[in-house]
């Protein structure tokens, strides 16, 4: 008990461990897993990413024109990065950024 009292007292003069969040940003680590980004020019439309995605966040939607359209739902995404690992043109067609999804 004495130890805890001494620590509580010394904590009065210590820096707080929490931050004033919305005004101060949280420090992110390098290689943080963020949004999946896609480049239509490089994509070869093998649909591997669609197939491996566990929550079906990546879907190739058929359009009126012949080729299919890439659609990514960041709210479904679990940021596991499985799609990127399975992509034959990793880092060119599909890559994982460090961005956060927009808060609506």
């Amino acid at each position, binding site marked *: 008990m004495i130890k805890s009292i001494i620590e*509580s007292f010394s904590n009065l003069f210590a820096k707080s461990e929490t*931050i004033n969040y919305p005004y101060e940003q949280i420090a992110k680590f390098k290689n943080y897993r963020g949004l999946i980004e896609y480049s239509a020019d490089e994509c070869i439309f093998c649909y591997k990413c669609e197939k491996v995605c566990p929550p079906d966040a990546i879907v190739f939607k058929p359009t009126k024109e012949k080729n299919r359209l890439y659609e990514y739902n960041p709210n479904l995404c679990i940021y596991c990065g499985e799609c990127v690992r399975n992509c034959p043109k990793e880092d060119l067609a599909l890559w994982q950024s460090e961005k956060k999804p927009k808060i609506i």
Partner: protein
Amino acid sequence: MSIVFSFMLGFFAPIYGGIFYGIDRVLKAKMQRRKGPPVLQPFYDMLKLFSKTKFIVNAPHTIWMIFYFLSLWAVVFMIFFGGNLLYIIFGHLLATVFFIISGYSVNSIFSQLGSNRKLLSVVAYEPILIVNAICIYLVFGTFEISEILAAPNNFNSLVFTFLSLLFVVPTVLKLSPFDASKAHQEIVGGIEVEFGGVFYELVYAAKFLEMIFVYSFIFILASNDYIFGTFLVVFSFFAVALVDNSTARIKIDSLLKALYMYGFGLGIVSIFWILLCCI
């Protein structure tokens, strides 16, 4: 003190009590290395609680609680008008009994357990308050607060009274380790659990009044030396917050044992100390 000033002190007690409570919360946050809420948080809470639906579980429940708040406020008025110490103690007891009855009047098991435990904690701290009132009487020869505050400082003879009152402060304010009557994690706040909206705000404001009640007891120990009295209050405020931060909640029967052994024991020691060494 002029009557107007006393009246103002009593009337605005819930307001500046709220500021003390806010300071208490910031202090506790600092002790836990958190940023903590702003000092005016109790008033933001108040605004929010006012905007909520006025839900009443049953009429007696709320009415007893309003009695509790009003009689506690009356006790605070009595303190600032320099009333009789014994009347104040029994007035506070009456207020607490109202609160306990209010807890018993609903069917919620948590509220009833809270009432049980509150009753036991009253049984534990009330004798200590009375023994200490006797000590104050032995030293100053009066129960009137206005006369005590005019008397010369005689803190040497009241050292043990002060120590024994330190046991009462966390019990009345329901702070750890003596907070079994509130027991947030066990009985979800005890009696407080069934109040909502404006009525909870009254319970919340009653906490500020309880704070003023117990700390005024400590303040009068320094009699006419107001600076020393303030120091005593600040010291006990710190000590109680520190102990609150570094202890777990003990069970109600351990609470009874601890208060009777140390609190009441120190009160008896105080009587002997005054009778044998100081007079």
